[in-house]
């Protein structure tokens, strides 16, 4: 039992140590990241997206294309 408590204390020390250490490293990394981004890609810290919203994302399914063609056909028919 005593032994279990000792293990528990060890786990607490180690656990809090790892949590603090890991998040401290993360603070350092984030600060570095922020500095790098601000230096080398400053434009992107504004509100503009990094890449133009790509027109090919979520590509319209073929049946939408079909609908477009329908519209074109009707348009031509009306002329």
């Amino acid at each position: 039992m005593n032994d279990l408590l000792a293990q528990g204390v060890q786990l607490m020390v180690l656990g809090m140590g790892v949590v603090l250490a890991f998040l401290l490293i993360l603070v350092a990394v984030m600060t570095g990241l922020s500095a790098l981004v601000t230096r080398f890609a400053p434009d992107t810290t504004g509100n503009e997206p990094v890449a133009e919203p790509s027109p090919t994302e979520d590509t319209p399914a073929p049946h939408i294309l079909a609908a477009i063609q329908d519209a074109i056909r009707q348009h031509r028919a009306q002329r």
Partner: protein
Amino acid sequence: MEQLHTLWLSTGLYQLSVGQFVMILVGLVLLFLAIRKNFEPLLLIPIGFGGILANIPVAGLAEPGGLLYLIYEAGLTTGVFPLLIFMGVGAMTDFGPLLANPRTLLLGAAAQFGIFVALLGALSLNYLGLDFSLADAASIGIIGGADGPTSIYVASRLSPELLGAVAVAAYSYMALVPLIQPPVIRLLTTEKQRRIKMEQLRPVGRLEKILFPILLLVLVALLLPDAAPLLGMFCFGNLMKESGVVNRLVDTTTNALINTLTILLGLAVGAKLGAEEFLVPETLGILVLGLAAFVIGTGSGVLMAQVMNRFSKVPINPIIGAAGVSAVPMAARVANRVGLEANPQNHLLMHAMGPNVAGVIGSAVAAGVLLNLAG
């Protein structure tokens, strides 16, 4: 006539044990709290209902072959449900406030202290006649992480028989954060400290937000692989969101997928509310220790903020330290409300979101350590 007897022998009235009756009442109380008191209804309605179903005699819903058992085996024995839910949580999380003020990560680290105190507390309760192994103590401690999927993931790995009590405690105390935290915050801060105004957060660009989950993943891979399942899926969800190029996947992840998994997760947790597992003295210990973990975590976060104020010129309102326990986004709102009481002009919400999401990372890291060393 014989069949009528068969039927009578299989009624609940004949078969219901006292324990099952009590657990059905417990389930009804959870439903009441969820519906009437708005205690985390998204989880506590499925958990409470699942708990009732699990305690219906004869039906055997939580026994091999039963629906709840099957859901439990498919989703919790494998760990799939909490991990995919964590992906969904990642896809709903904005690291902007944290990136704008990285040192608030330390608040999220400090607030995990409650986890380990509760762990020690559980081991101490063995002197009072309870019987908690190191793994059990870790499962209890993680309640202090104030993060549902993390708690359920750890408990399902380390101590499945405690899962019911751990999950109920975790979600109940998350719902009670508006009652638990304010007194602790007031005890550990002065009125003047609570009035501290914080600097406007800088805007954070898209590139930083995209790189953050990737960097976090790489750090986890290099330093703490045991936290990789949880934090990996979390980062995956977050990267999908921030990338901006797979919006249809993000939409499904944060709606249909997470909702379906939430229902199933709740029912599966309910399967662990069987009378013989839940109605034991250990459960009382778990409830007490869970509350202690929340209180201590809140206090540690606040005190860490006080310590940081000693060493830094840019002041931190210590209230936001309380948000480090996570309980996203309830704890950040509580911080905001306590701040407004001290100074009606002082909106701390966004400042509290930093430590709030830091607490999610913090408890996932702690979970990694526990899974590695207490497993």
